[in-house]
């Protein structure tokens, strides 16, 4: 195929990704009258936001007193103080507004007897600065993400947003001065490549959970935005921090929401013991996700796991009234029957910690602008480039995300990035900056390589190898030697990725080509993760290593003197740099460093 006649499509703004963040940003831009293109590998309602279950957090206080400052405290604590407090304040303050807006868009939230939005308890959500659990997770049964994604898509239908469905963005286009001018993209149906030339480019490409062998993530979660950013010279922030969700269905990896424990579910080991009481005497089963996942892994490692291989624990809701399960957790019941072969009304669900969420990503500020270090200034906006949602690192989740803060992140930063683009475009000249002569070079090279090569590595086998290395060397618990070995191994996998060949050369809906192009993105994320994790010589949040144990001097193995800083990994030479955590919120007092316990 020749890539000489590339169509150029001009828009004010292009949004890559049509999950929660992309759709929320699109509403902002479309309703402002801007000419916007939204690109998505899948029809918008098939984006992975659809699989979120438990809720979206906001201190509405519909069932009991709550306050955004408590939400902020919980988020900072959950992040193990690695989150930027300006962004966290911004998100928690904005939460009630964006959730109410979503209700106005038509979101079918469950209701309290008074007709308000129903809220349930969730891990790490506490009242009065960590005192006792509070109902903060706004829910539509256990299908909150599905209800939210559809409501956001529907609002975009109303706003007549222009979608490019089943288009895969391939590379970010920057000019010599570093301005971002859009993306190149592949239309899957025809195999044609276009340039989307835009004054503003928003990445909302979601996570990359598919770098791990066992993941709750969809097939499409291949970190495309991160790969594109990394190839265009943008560093990736805090990539060592990955959330392992405590309750993935053993074997299948499918998510079982924390809302199950919010509704009263209990984790039990082989002897039926409610083991979380030993690890988190106060919050118990509703401790933060990293804490619960480690506790479960410890139980399994110490021989107290269930089943013939003692390799899972049980999530028990058999004590709940069947009506509650049918009303509040109907989707979970379906999933358990489908993927675990048990009806949770009658028997507990076998679960294991499963890779779920990427806390790090493309560095942004709380306005959604992508920021990079320039000279001594760590956070200089890249002109024309924005990011929101899981692909971005604002950083609100720091070293560990609280449940339900992901859906909130999508709404708050999707909207904020849209608002910022609307404002920034007012300052920009009416004409688009010219495309550089080599705008399509990187993309052309990648595509021609795949077209030309007849023999080489299998994409499928190489992807599996990548996932196995990540799983074995960079999991719930991390080990000094394993990490060092992991770096070597992942660099070997990178060599294989460069030699991947596909047999299918068709132009039409060539999924082999799409998967090979995705692998180019997965490998960037995998390298960033392994190299950043190997270098961070402390334990914090989801990153816990054997050579940084819990001691009196360094509780939980955290080392604020040396490691209270964000990692920045750059593709060029796999180099690492660091930048300070923003401990100053916007209007309130800083939440002082403290040892984290639940």
């Amino acid at each position, binding site marked *: 195929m020749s890539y000489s006649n590339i169509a150029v499509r001009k828009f004010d703004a292009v949004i890559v990704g049509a999950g929660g963040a992309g759709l929320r940003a699109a509403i902002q831009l479309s309703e402002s009258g801007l000419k916007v293109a939204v690109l998505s590998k*899948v*029809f918008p*309602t*098939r*984006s*992975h936001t*659809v*699989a979120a279950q438990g809720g979206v957090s906001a201190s509405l206080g519909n069932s009991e007193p709550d306050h955004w400052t408590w939400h902020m405290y919980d988020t900072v604590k959950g992040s193990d103080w690695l989150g930027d407090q300006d962004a966290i304040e911004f998100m928690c303050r904005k939460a009630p507004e964006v959730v*109410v*807006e979503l*209700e*106005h*868009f*038509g979101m*079918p*939230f*469950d*209701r*309290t*007897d*008074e*007709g*308000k*939005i129903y809220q349930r308890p969730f891990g790490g959500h506490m009242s009065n600065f960590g005192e006792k659990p509070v109902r903060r997770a706004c829910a*539509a049964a256990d*299908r909150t993400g*599905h*209800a939210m994604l*559809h*409501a956001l898509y*529907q*609002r975009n*239908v*109303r706003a007549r947003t222009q979608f490019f469905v089943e288009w895969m963005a391939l590379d970010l286009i920057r000019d010599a001065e570093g301005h971002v001018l859009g993306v190149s993209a592949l239309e899957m*149906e025809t195999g044609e490549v276009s340039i989307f030339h835009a004054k503003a480019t928003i990445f909302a490409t979601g996570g990359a959970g598919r770098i791990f062998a066992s993941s709750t993530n*969809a*097939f499409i979660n291949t970190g495309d935005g991160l790969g594109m950013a990394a190839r265009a010279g943008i560093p990736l922030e805090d990539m060592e921090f990955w959330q392992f969700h405590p309750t993935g269905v053993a*074997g*299948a990896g*499918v998510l079982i929401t924390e809302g199950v424990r919010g509704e009263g579910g209990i984790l039990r080991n082989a002897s039926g013991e409610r083991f979380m009481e030993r690890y988190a005497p106060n919050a118990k089963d509703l401790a933060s996700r990293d804490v619960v996942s480690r506790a479960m892994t410890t139980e399994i490692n110490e021989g107290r796991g269930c089943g013939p291989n003692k390799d899972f624990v049980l999530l028990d809701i058999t004590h709940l009234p069947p009506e509650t399960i049918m009303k509040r957790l109907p*989707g979970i019941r*379906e*999933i358990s029957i*489908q*993927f675990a072969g048990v009806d949770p009304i009658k028997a507990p669900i076998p679960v294991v910690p499963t890779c779920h969420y990427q806390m790090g990503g493309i560095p942004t500020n709380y306005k959604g602008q992508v920021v990079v270090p320039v000279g001594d200034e760590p956070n200089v906006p890249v002109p024309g480039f924005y990011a929101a949602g899981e692909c971005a690192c604002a950083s609100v989740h720091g070293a560990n995300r609280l449940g339900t803060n992901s859906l909130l992140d999508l709404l708050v930063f999707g909207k904020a990035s849209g608002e910022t683009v609307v404002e920034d475009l007012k300052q920009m000249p009416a004409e688009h900056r010219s495309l550089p002569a080599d705008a399509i070079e990187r993309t052309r090279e990648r595509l021609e390589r795949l077209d030309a090569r007849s023999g080489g590595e*299998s*994409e*499928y*086998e190489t992807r599996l190898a990548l996932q196995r290395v990540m799983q074995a060397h960079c999991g719930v618990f991390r080990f000094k030697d394993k990490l060092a070995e992991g770096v070597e191994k992942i660099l070997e996998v990178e060599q294989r990725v460069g030699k991947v060949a*596909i*047999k*299918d050369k*068709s*132009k*039409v*809906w*060539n*999924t*082999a080509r799409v*998967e090979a192009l995705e692998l180019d993105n997965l490998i960037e994320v995998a390298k960033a993760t392994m190299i950043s994790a190997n270098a961070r010589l402390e334990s914090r949040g989801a990153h816990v290593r054997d050579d940084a144990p819990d001691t009196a001097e360094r509780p939980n193995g955290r080392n604020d003197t040396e490691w209270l800083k964000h990692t920045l990994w750059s593709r060029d030479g796999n180099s690492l740099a660091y930048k300070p955590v923003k401990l100053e919120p916007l209007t309130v007092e800083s939440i002082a460093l403290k040892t984290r316990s639940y």
Partner: protein
Amino acid sequence: MTNRTLQFKIYRYDPDRDDAPRMQDYSVEVNPVTDRKLLDVLVKLKSQDDSLSFRRSCREGICGSDAMNINGKNGLACLTEVSTLKSPVVLRPLPGLPVIRDLIVDMTQFFKQYHSIKPYLINDTPPPERERLQSPEDREELNGLYECILCACCSTACPSFWWNPDRFVGPAGLLNAYRFIADTRDQATSERLDDLNDPYRLFRCHTIMNCVDVCPKGLNPTKAIGKIKELMVRRAI
């Protein structure tokens, strides 16, 4: 549990290469533990023949990507238990929509009908500072409606939709139309009913009920269609 060999007959068509569609035979070793769902087996097949094309994403029945015709019945590959399948397993694209390639159909017409029912909340009163109130009972009216995943299993199982995909809204679109009619926050019931009061848009439904039979989420479009008809009758008297 031991592996078993399963035979497949899969519809193949690549307009870039083939003059006409064909059925291709595959034979695959199925591991009862790791290949529980049809999608697992399809992914395995694709690892052997990378030209086999199908849509997939969440692999848990919530995104609606991998709808196909499985042994004559529409369903989601990711929710179809392999052990229940009769060999040879015959896989075809969803019927009634143009095939783009292999198991991938052109869903334009399906989404056009979905978009035609104005699938968004219409309420022109100024939004209150807080949420609009809705009683738990009123909210319950949306159960069995809002869960639709737009997989198109229902509409492409419906003979009325096969005959008039351009004029009949189809079960998925009508289920979603009723989702907004049933929502106490929506103020456009009357316009919605006017729009559907048409010999084709609504009344091509002849309660064949294939839609109910195939819905992977256990939803009942026929019932929703019945409720729309009931509201029209009630409005007329």
